[in-house]
């Protein structure tokens, strides 16, 4: 059996040198398990030029570990993750959006729940950089969607020094950790962009992000009733499994079909949230059956007296911070993702600066 070969690469490429460099990166303990792009000074300078910010600017601190992240360290990790230089402003915006989340300032990165960032990209930058907003939006196959969250993971690993089995204590970790970055399909969405709901201009390029506990989809393609459909979402959102404190926050990444059906019945985002805030939860008796009907002084759920049929709401309210709503995916079936937020969502979106001419900004940044 002979191996088939791709069209011959240009003569100057040296795969042996590339392999040796990749192995060197593994040996240093820098990798998340997949090959890294070895970052060189010339490559990283392109990233810094694309961002147009001081390399020394500190963009993250974790005092308990005595570690900090500078723009330059972020650039090295983004280059290693396989980002193109022009993705780097999106990486920085995603990182800054995550820094606005309370959970990332505390123990979130070290947590036994092994949370995954959810990164949502809005605006013209989606098309300019080729972000997937359509089919398979939670899955692989698209360089910006795959490498931007990987860059975040490498920053946490390398710049913060949080390694699995050491300072990172995920019991199992969330599938999709360091790989969930989706562009909203604004073209198919019946609602304004998520970033607009978070206060940015409707045509702004911006990134929203938070940490997730877990994801579970709702497959419902045979009802034409918005109320039935939303009730299906309420049931999934209100499950007890991931519900450990008095309240829990969630999100929905609606597929276009579901979003359009619900919007067609007159629901805007606020109305969807109100509907779901009232209906997502369990009876006290139902929670008692799983040992989660009571809260201790710290708001942690555990076994209580049980018994009653009172309904306990899961969402702390109907604000966007407690139920993030985005739209993404193919318009080919009624399958949407319910996500569970690690804590809440800050309700903010961070602007991606208009992309600069790399050559011009190279000078001013040097």
């Amino acid at each position, binding site marked *: 059996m002979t191996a088939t070969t791709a069209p011959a690469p240009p003569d100057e490429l040296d795969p042996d*040198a590339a392999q040796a*460099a990749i192995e*060197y*990166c593994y040996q*240093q303990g*820098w990798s998340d398990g997949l090959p890294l792009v*070895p*970052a*060189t*000074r*010339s490559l*990283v300078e392109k990233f810094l030029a694309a961002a147009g910010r001081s390399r020394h600017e500190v963009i993250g601190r974790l*005092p*308990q*570990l*005595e*570690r*900090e*992240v*500078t723009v330059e*360290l972020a650039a*090295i*990790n983004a*280059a*290693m993750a396989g980002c193109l230089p022009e993705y780097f402003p999106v990486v920085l915006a995603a990182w800054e959006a995550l820094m606005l989340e309370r959970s990332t300032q*505390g*123990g*979130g990165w*070290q*947590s*036994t729940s092994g949370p995954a960032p959810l990164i949502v990209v809005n605006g013209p930058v989606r098309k300019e950089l080729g972000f997937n907003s359509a089919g398979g939006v939670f899955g692989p196959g698209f360089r910006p969607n795959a490498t931007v969250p990987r860059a975040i993971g*490498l920053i946490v690993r*390398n*710049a913060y*020094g949080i390694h699995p*089995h*050491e*300072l*990172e*204590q*995920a019991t199992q970790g969330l599938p999709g950790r360091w790989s969930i970055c989706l562009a909203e399909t604004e073209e198919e969405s019946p609602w304004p962009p998520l970033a607009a709901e978070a206060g940015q201009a409707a045509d702004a390029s911006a990134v929203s992000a938070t940490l997730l506990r877990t994801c579970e989809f709702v497959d419902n393609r045979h009802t034409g009733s918005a109320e039935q459909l939303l009730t299906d979402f309420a049931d999934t959102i209100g499950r007890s499994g991931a519900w450990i404190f008095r309240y829990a926050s969630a999100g929905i990444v609606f597929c276009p079909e579901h979003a359009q059906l619900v919007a067609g019945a007159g629901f805007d985002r606020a109305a969807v949230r109100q509907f779901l805030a009232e209906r997502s939860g369990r009876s006290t008796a139902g929670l008692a059956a799983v040992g989660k009907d009571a809260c*201790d002084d*710290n708001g*942690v759920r*555990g076994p209580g007296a049980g018994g009653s049929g009172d309904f306990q709401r899961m969402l702390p309210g109907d604000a966007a911070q407690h139920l993030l709503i985005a739209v993404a995916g193919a318009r080919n079936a009624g399958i949407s993702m319910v996500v569970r937020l690690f804590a809440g969502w800050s309700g903010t979106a961070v602007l991606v600066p208009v992309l600069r001419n790399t050559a011009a900004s190279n000078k001013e940044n040097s």
Partner: protein
Amino acid sequence: MPNAILDPTGRASRVPASAPGLDLALRRSDLAGARVGLMDNTKHNAALLLAEIGKLLASEQGATVTARATKANFAAPAPADLVERYRAACDVVLTGVGDCGSCSASAVADGIAFERAGLPAAVICSDAFVVTADAMAELRGAPGYHYLQTPHPVAVLTADQVRQRAKQLLPGVVEMLTAPR
């Protein structure tokens, strides 16, 4: 000459901030008359476990619990003013329970901070978090720092089982807080 590969950790050029090694606070020979501080970290059963050990220290060692507080943010080391409050009010401190990814690490950081403030400390961690606790000790310049381990899990124990754990831990607590004879 080939291009150098850049280090993504930012540590290559760094000198360690604190000199390695920790001088433990001076120990008394016993705990008779000692003022004991308890600092729990909101983790389920932590306050009860510390309180039970406190009772045993009183009844069996002649110590008195003179301060107790809950560290609200279990993920972060205790703020300096909280450490100072214990320094003013106690002779020794008992803290825990390190029972999660970030809180085990920060419990060890607290123990080291108490020692550096001159307070003998006993830190209790679940034995499932030894690696992260040790990693924090190293970060704080105290590799090999000793703390007490108790079998995981702690959060599911009944009150009676917590009292059992307190009894099991007591000799280790006393040993850790006093000078070797």
